[in-house]
């Protein structure tokens, strides 16, 4: 099922996407359009294919069936790093920092590679950029700390910061709030809110419902690799099958 696309041309267009691992079908004919600037929530029980879907968007997986189109360009066969340069950035369910680097260096990687490296842009200038991003995330103090010394919430923030450093058009946050205290959840949520909007589209995967409710303009629920509901948060929540999927009845 496809959503009747809105007036503006979609930023991300997924059509008839199917992903199999051996016999097991992780994504089954998934199609969805995401508008520029949209705040999009992705929910579903464990193993429903959420992470698989964003792996297919970010290029961690290649897909055999279906296409992924980003800003009018078919990126289905592109390797991940090219997609990143095209403007797709993500965080990971379990944070994946560059452990041997400082927080600042983590961002420098993004600035060195993702942003079309312009020799004229001096190292010093890149550092500034990185610092300003960190400041925006409230991580400035930790800039020279080793990534391994960060707390859970700081790791989450750093990953978002690193993602932002790639100057993304589309930011995918994969359970960035998992295992955080409620106050921390709000912190991160506000962060995502502030990022979204000004020409950055955000896809948020989340288990914490009220977070999704608060954040999303539109919510999609996956179950067993299929879209079982999509639309306004309230509608989706009300949906019979969604509740079944969650309550496992």
């Amino acid at each position, binding site marked *: 099922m496809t959503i009747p696309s809105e007036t503006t041309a979609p930023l991300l267009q997924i059509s008839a996407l199917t992903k199999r691992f051996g016999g097991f079908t992780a994504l089954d004919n998934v199609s969805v359009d995401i508008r520029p600037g949209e705040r999009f929530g992705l929910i579903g029980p464990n193993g429903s294919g959420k992470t698989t879907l964003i792996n297919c968007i970010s290029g961690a997986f290649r897909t055999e069936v279906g296409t992924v189109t980003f800003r009018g360009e078919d990126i289905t066969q592109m390797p991940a790093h090219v997609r990143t340069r095209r403007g797709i950035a993500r965080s*990971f369910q379990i944070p994946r920092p560059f452990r*041997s680097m400082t927080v600042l260096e983590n961002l420098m990687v993004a600035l060195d590679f993702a942003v079309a*490296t312009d020799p004229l842009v001096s190292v010093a200038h890149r550092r500034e950029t990185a610092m300003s991003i960190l400041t925006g995330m409230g991580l400035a103090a930790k800039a020279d700390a080793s990534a391994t010394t960060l707390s859970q919430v700081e790791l989450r923030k750093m990953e978002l910061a690193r993602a932002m450093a790639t100057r993304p058009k589309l930011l995918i946050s994969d359970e960035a709030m998992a295992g955080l205290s409620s106050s921390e959840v709000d912190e991160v949520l506000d962060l995502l809110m502030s990022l979204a909007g000004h020409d950055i589209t955000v896809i948020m995967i989340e288990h914490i419902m009220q977070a999704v409710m608060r954040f999303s303009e539109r919510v999609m629920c996956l179950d067993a690799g299929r879209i079982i509901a999509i639309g306004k948060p309230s509608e989706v929540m009300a949906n019979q099958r969604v509740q079944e999927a969650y309550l496992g009845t």
Partner: protein
Amino acid sequence: MNRNGILFWIGAALFLLIIALMTHFVRNEYPFFAGYVILQFIVLAVAWSILGGHAGYVNFGTSAFFGMGVYTAVFLFKVAGAPLAVQIAAAAAVGALMGFALGLITLRMQGIFFSIATIAATIVIETSITNWRYVGGAAGIQLQRPPVTPPFDGYVQMLFFVQALLVVLAVAISRYIQSSWIGRGLQALRDDELAAECTGVPTLRLKVLACVISGALMCAAGAPAAMYLQYADPSSAFNLNYSVSVLAMSLIGGTAHWLGPVVGAILLGSTQQLLTVTISSEVNVLVLGVMLVLFVVGAPEGLIGLLKKIRKEGK
């Protein structure tokens, strides 16, 4: 940063100057014979850690690259009596090609698979050389050195100096890589390949690049060995010992900094030379084994890491 650069080049110049003076004023030839071997291991270790250290991909094929270097030299010398410089240049080219091919085949694989693949590649290459009659095959081949080219007054002295040049070259390259975006990219993909990709790092291309550079340097380091030994046979040229020693040297020195493999090579290399002319028995294999275990367990960051730690605690 920049001052460091100047200091480095001054150091390199001094190093070469001392070497050059040695070749003219030291009459005793032993330092050159023994020193040559150590310099050769420095090049190999530095080259190895460009891929093995920065990117964390363990190449077991050191002996394959080294051996190919030897046999490139042998072939060119036999077919055209090519001069040393040509032998080395050609070897570097061959090494780069090998690195590229090997990289393309194997660097898609996660770390350890790459290591296995390099073992396999080594055996394939060694077998091919063993079956290549023209360069002596399994029976090996004896070579007669051409007269030495001035200003040197002994061939060994010349080889010693040439190997020293290679050391400077290798270290300079490794040093540049470490401080440049290439180094940061390799470091990132060593830490987390997927995260690196998703941060825009072209992991495969970087790995292949590293493999090419490292391969070229290893082959180049092997080339002069043909003239040094004036003899080549596959089982010596492709000896597993090269792969393991180089791995050990890099780890003992520490792979986090370009200086690590240099230190490691000097330490282990001279230890091995020393043991050869002192203990001279199975025991020196034992020493290698024990050193390996002690260091990876006791000083996982190698000597360099150890020093850093000490300095930290000093403060």
